[in-house]
């Protein structure tokens, strides 16, 4: 969701697969096109566990949002929100705390158009079409919506998107910019692919995604932990998806094949 090719303006690229729609497909959604499914099948060959990983990542998003609601957060900035699919942030937050406000951020045309349709009559939720690696633009836009009060804690969500941020876009700097803009007591929930767990499968994914519009950059646990600079990580720290605060009655999941590390931190 970053680093677009030079010629592509903000118009639609229907023939190209998108990571957002690939994710939707892996979650069993129908909001996708043949090209997306073709890419997804390659992705699945590289990482046969991909559907499970998508499910675990989506489940982490839900647990993280609920954790933040519990901690008193009522406004969320969801970076790289993608195709609205099952269990969107505003639905989860609002079920737990009615009145919660959400600003989604994505730059992919169809994801944005789709979100706008879904949120047409929703006064407490909107979507910004911006590149999340341009924090100044995102933060300006978020302020303009009037939905986010930066004097109050904000839940910044970067779930399953930072692996699309290449090193040259300075991921740590991007996170730092969001961190500096939000009030103490704000939270960052972040998850991203790693090669620490299944190096071979990860290498396969990287190869599959390299020629696509959304190349991927796995990071080590240390690198991901470093992104939380200025935040206090809540227990249990940066861990494989299913290990992050599993819920009572949860079915055992294979953490070694979960592909993605996740963590939640509170701004000091």
């Amino acid at each position, binding site marked *: 969701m970053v680093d677009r090719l030079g*010629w*592509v*303006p*903000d*118009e*639609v*690229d*229907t*023939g*190209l697969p998108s990571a957002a*729609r690939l994710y939707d497909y892996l*979650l*069993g*959604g*129908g*909001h*996708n*096109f*043949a*090209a997306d*499914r073709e890419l997804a*099948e390659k992705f699945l060959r590289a990482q*046969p566990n991909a*559907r*499970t990983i*998508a*499910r675990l990542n*989506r*489940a982490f998003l*839900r647990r993280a949002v609920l954790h933040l609601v519990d901690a008193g957060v009522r406004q969320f900035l969801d970076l790289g929100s993608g*195709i609205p699919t*099952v*269990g969107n942030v505003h*639905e*989860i937050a609002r079920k737990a705390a009615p009145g919660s406000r959400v600003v989604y951020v994505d730059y992919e*045309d*169809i*994801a*944005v*158009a*789709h979100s*706008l*349709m879904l949120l047409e009559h929703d006064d407490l939720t909107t979507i910004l079409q911006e590149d999340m690696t341009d924090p100044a633009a995102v933060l300006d836009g978020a302020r303009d919506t009037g939905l986010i009060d930066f004097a109050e804690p904000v839940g910044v969500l970067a779930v399953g998107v930072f692996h699309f941020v290449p090193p040259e876009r300075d991921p740590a700097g991007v996170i730092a910019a969001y961190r500096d803009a939000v009030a103490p007591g704000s939270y960052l929930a972040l998850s991203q692919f790693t090669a620490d767990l299944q190096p071979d499968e990860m290498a396969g994914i990287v190869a599959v995604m390299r020629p696509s519009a959304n190349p991927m950059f796995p990071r080590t646990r240390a690198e991901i932990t470093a992104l939380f600079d200025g935040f206090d990580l809540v227990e249990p720290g940066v861990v494989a998806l299913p290990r992050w605060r599993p*819920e*009572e*009655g*949860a*079915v055992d*999941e294979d953490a070694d094949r979960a592909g993605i590390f996740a963590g939640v931190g509170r701004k000091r």
Partner: protein
Amino acid sequence: MAPPARTRRQDIAREWMRAVYPTAYVPMSPIEIELYLLDLVDVIADAVQAEPFTVDPVAVVGDRLVEAHFTGPETLQRTVEVLGHALLFTPELQDVPRLAEKVVAILGSLSTAFATSMRMDAFDQQEEVTRALMAAKRRAERVLEVSEARFREVFDSSAFGIAITDLDGECVEANEALAEMVGRDRAELTGRRLVELFDPADAEALASTYQAVGDGRAVRVRAQRRLLREDGEPVWVHLAVSLLRDADGEPAYYVTMAEDVSELHLLRKNLDFQLLHDSLTGLSNRQRVVSRLEALHGTSRGGITLYHLDLDAFSAVNNGLGHAVGDRVLTEVGRRLEAAVADETALVARVGGDEFAIVVDNSPTTPSVPVVVDRINEALQRPMADGVAVSATIGVVDRPPAGWDVAEILRAADATLRRAKASGKRQWLPYDRHADQRFRDRQARAARMPGALADHELELEYQPLVTLADRRVLGHVARLRWDDLGHDECVRLADETGLSLALGQWALREAAADTARSSGLGTLHFELSPMQSRDEDLVRTVKRTLTETGLPASRLRIFLDARSMLHGVDDDNAQVLRDNGVAAGLTRFNGGQAELSLLDELPVDALVLDPSVVRRLAERPESFLHDAVARMVGLVRSSGVSVLVPDVATEERAAWWARVEVDAAFGDHLAPAVPGYELSGT
């Protein structure tokens, strides 16, 4: 303080949650999911008990599963497995008449509603994303006015059909998507008048559209029109026509964008991946086979041949090496089958768990059926990466009669495959009308079985188990009878209809009650079906049966199916039975090495030989097999386990078995079975 006791319905809901949780992402906590499913369990359990019985209330269960997004590829299958088992064995439902039949009806209704809801859901989602696409496209069109260079990129990669025409309406260039829509070559479109691609009835309206845009009276015109495919089929499209100006701002070209909105297209988009492909192997699925047969049958010049394959003993791969290996094997099988028929116009599909189909459109060079079968066998026999080698059994329908419909062709292939399987592994058979008729009769009979069970058409008989030396009666073996069908046939039919658990349970209770009433029957010897042997609720069922019928545990001996025990799903059953005072044995024992080792592992004190072993010995007098079995019997008996022989049919056979000193035998020659209703009380 002890928590309140969980009800059985709660247990079912939890079991169901745990089964479906890994199959789909549902935005609820495990506990919320369990509660959600508990509501559905209530609906189902109430429906099973309602009088008069109707499946109507259950449809809502399928809808609500889809609504909550329990929509993974395996969700329905796991749901049916969990509920199928739970409903048959919930104490609450034990007294419901015709339970098995109702459960089948209810699961059928649930599955239908689920599939319908899924389909609607897929439609809704595709419509949504298409609308999103259109919204995004409208903005893209604004961009067109800004830069033609940018437009070029969209042109090539777009899923929309796009044509650039000069001011006279002649096509300068068309993109691949448009060429596909009209079923023509892209190059062929260049130089043609675009209007010729449309239905003549639309020509006038189109002309005025282009006029309006060209005059500048309209910046962009949208309309719905019909393109004509080369084969004459109309394709409904949304059109957007706009003007492209040159560097000086003068009109230069028209841009026409077309989105295929024909129902066929929408359907295809929906169905393409979700419904026409198998997600594991990437092969086509059954649906695709149906449409391919529909397209070819009756129109194919060389006629079609349908090969229906079933992998032999594939469950051994899945159970023994794990599902990951199983999945890899299935994928590899698909690849090899495709390679085996690569020279033919053929469609390879996965049509069931371990079933594949190949539809061949015969050409003059297509090899004969036996040659193709050989190729398939050769392709499969090479070991795969995991060291697994598989074989397949194949049913073949070659050039079916023109009068058959597709359903009939599929049914014939399936029936032929079942017949081939009955003759062993790595077999193939061509379709045979007479054999098929017999098979159909049998299937019809199988379909009637649930009703027959409920209407008490099935009966139990008791065959005396006698010692061969002095013909002393040791007890009786319970045998099923349904009109002219004997025990083995009944068991096989029940297995095919999925009724074997319900039937086995019914038979155990009947037999225990009869035996309790008639002390003359001695010890009841009861053989379990494979499915019953693996049942986790077996011990509970047996104990309840004993309590309810008053039969003392000492008068019951349960025989577990030896092959099921080999799979080791739940080998506690024998031990727990014994702990409860019920003697345990093995049945359908064929003396293989693996089965012999079971005698060490399980606390069994008797075994019944497999009827096929007995039959084979009878067919080949005094062979090497006789030596082997004689030794095996001696070996088994020396370890303290009794050997019982079924189906002893002649005096000569009885004498041979007496010579190898088996403990007892049964069969019509030794003593005919007594029908249950002829038993005298006490």
